[in-house]
């Protein structure tokens, strides 16, 4: 234990890792704070860079950039009411209301402080939860893996704040995309239409870049430029945060725990954690009437929650290769590329690398406090950069980055195609995150499904016979029929509210 810890320290105390951590932090802060450029996009555009780094430095960039970008999304949320990333959307109104009351420092300070605390709590949970879960995971067969992956996809459709039918359709589209190529049980070219470029299948990373970056540039073409952030002098940012911590320690802990639980669930990540925690904070608050008028309580809980889920979201990623959200999906791609194939044995065979990941999470979250304060102070300058200078650079990064992934031009075609697909889907209310998770998990879910079917001789019963498989199946099916229950409940409530309707 102590030896592995020392080894892990040695792994991360190289110049390459330190520079990578710092550079990725600054990058994550800047991209995350620009309205319209999400944390997922920031991480996806980093992937080509990680190709050329050592494994630990590569993971360091992903860890640092994603944690910073999730926090930085609070900055435009508070100052402009435009959340920088979807995870900040839950409380952007509240934070903006605080800014209008002249409490911008308190709102942003709470963002940075409770994000850092949440991130560290999430990391601790990752350290504590992962090894015992790895023990259990060793006994998993393809049945469990199938249900786990299925549960992940179902959670992803629940997170989407859109029609569940459309979310499930998006997921199917993603799985269909994953069918392309010759990597299937028969090894035959499937849906390749005779194009050799399609034989290898669609790479998830170019698809992600297309859906999250190109589609965003496309939207920018049609929407008016967001107003520049008004220049303002900030007072002390951290003042009073300790008082808030003491006053709202219960909310903070609850936010941390909810974030950790949601992060551990496959398919659910920071966005869902923020929404659930904000709603919970309002529900259990002693002064719920203050919510929406610039009250810091919800901010504390949701901020503590979304960053906790970032770290604990690595639990299913590292153990099963099942991503908690789109950022984790990118991280899994990087892990595979660097020879750290996710799986329960990772924790025994590559223990020092795992400790290095924990340490990097903790360092990144501690660094978040000083860097975040600098970023908040600089925000009114950085965010004045007009969109017409940022977007062209994003376009170049899309072109070069997608080329670099396979050193062929087909990657660029993929990015352009998925840009169009993502744009059309988003415009029509189809959540793209569900599709992306479908693409990432398609091969795995097919393999476990077909292998299980072969083992069971085509019968469905063995899918439910093993105890853990049965539990996972019940959860997955529960997630599937959950929207139906909500719908029925809403109908009943409406029926009770108007007796005429229930009589007729």
């Amino acid at each position: 234990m102590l030896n592995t810890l020392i080894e892990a320290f040695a792994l991360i105390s190289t110049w390459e890792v330190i520079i990578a951590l710092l550079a990725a932090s600054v990058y994550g802060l800047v991209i995350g704070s620009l309205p319209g450029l999400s944390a997922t996009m920031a991480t996806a555009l980093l992937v080509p860079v990680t190709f050329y780094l050592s494994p630990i430095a590569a993971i360091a960039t992903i860890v640092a950039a994603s944690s910073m970008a999730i926090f930085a999304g609070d900055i435009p949320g508070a100052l402009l009411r435009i959340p920088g990333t979807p995870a900040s959307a839950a409380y952007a109104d509240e934070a903006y209301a605080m800014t209008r009351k002249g409490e911008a420092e308190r709102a942003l300070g709470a963002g940075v402080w409770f994000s850092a605390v949440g991130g560290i709590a999430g990391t601790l949970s990752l350290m504590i939860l992962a090894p015992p879960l790895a023990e259990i995971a060793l006994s998993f067969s393809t049945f469990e893996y199938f249900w786990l992956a299925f549960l992940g996809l179902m959670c992803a459709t629940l997170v989407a704040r859109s029609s569940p039918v459309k979310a499930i359709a998006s997921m199917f589209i993603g799985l269909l995309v994953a069918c392309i190529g010759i990597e299937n049980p028969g090894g035959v070219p499937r849906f390749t239409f005779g194009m050799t470029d399609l034989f290898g299948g669609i790479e998830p990373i170019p698809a992600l870049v297309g859906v999250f970056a190109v589609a965003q540039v496309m939207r920018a073409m049609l929407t008016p430029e967001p107003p520049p952030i008004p220049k303002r002098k900030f007072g002390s940012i951290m003042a009073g945060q300790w008082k808030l911590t003491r006053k709202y320690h219960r909310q903070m802990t609850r936010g941390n725990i909810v974030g950790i639980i949601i992060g551990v669930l496959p398919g659910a990540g920071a966005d869902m954690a923020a929404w659930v925690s904000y709603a919970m904070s309002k529900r259990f608050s002693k002064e719920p009437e203050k919510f929406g008028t610039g009250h810091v309580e919800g901010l504390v809980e949701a901020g503590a929650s979304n960053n906790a889920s970032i770290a604990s979201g690595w639990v299913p990623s590292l153990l099963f290769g099942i991503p908690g959200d789109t950022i984790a999906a990118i991280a899994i791609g990087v892990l595979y590329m660097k020879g750290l194939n996710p799986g329960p044995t990772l924790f025994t065979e590559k223990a020092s690398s795992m400790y290095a990941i924990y340490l990097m999470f903790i360092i990144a979250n501690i660094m978040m406090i000083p860097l975040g304060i600098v970023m908040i102070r600089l925000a009114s300058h950085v965010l004045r950069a007009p969109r017409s200078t940022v977007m062209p650079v994003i376009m170049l990064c899309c072109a070069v980055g997608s080329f670099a992934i396979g050193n062929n031009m087909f990657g660029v075609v993929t990015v352009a195609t998925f840009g169009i697909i993502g744009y059309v889907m988003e415009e029509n209310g189809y959540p793209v995150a569900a599709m992306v998770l479908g693409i990432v998990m398609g091969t795995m879910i097919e393999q476990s499904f077909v292998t299980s079917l072969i083992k069971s001789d085509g019968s469905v019963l063995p899918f439910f016979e093993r105890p853990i498989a049965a539990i996972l199946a019940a959860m997955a099916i529960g997630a599937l029929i959950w929207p139906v229950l909500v719908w029925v409940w809403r109908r009943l409530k409406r029926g009770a509210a108007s007796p005429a309707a229930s009589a007729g």
Partner: protein
Amino acid sequence: MRLPDRVTGLFLVGLGAAAAYGGWQLPPVPGQPVGPNVFPLVIGSGLALCGLAIAFGIGHSFEEEEELVPLEPGQAPPPTGKLYGLRALLPPALLLFYVAVADRLGFIITAALIVYVTASALGARWKLSLPLAVLAPIGIHLIFSKLLRVPLPAGLLPMPW
């Protein structure tokens, strides 16, 4: 480009049916009941079912109406028109342009064109977009070609490093 649910739903029915049919046509693995044909069949049928449900408006009540941010006084309303919507296709078109000509023109020239067009389309004046079109490709080339050793096409204008 907002389409009615009926249109997107029916499109998905078609896509799902095509996928299921295409999967069904795949050759099975000899001597095995399940092969590469099962998964597309399941996915395709599921997609077609979802498409039908969407076309009939099931689940529509869950969708949140888009919140329209009120315009600030002094902010011009976005122009509308048939051709205006086509501007959204500019970014993917530029990427395909990159695929088509990058090998012949080289990275620097192609990238400069992409940057100039994108910046201008987003409303930058030439005083901003011209220097950007010169500097951004050189910067990206430095990072990706020099630092990360991505083989970017040299074309007509090779860089001195």
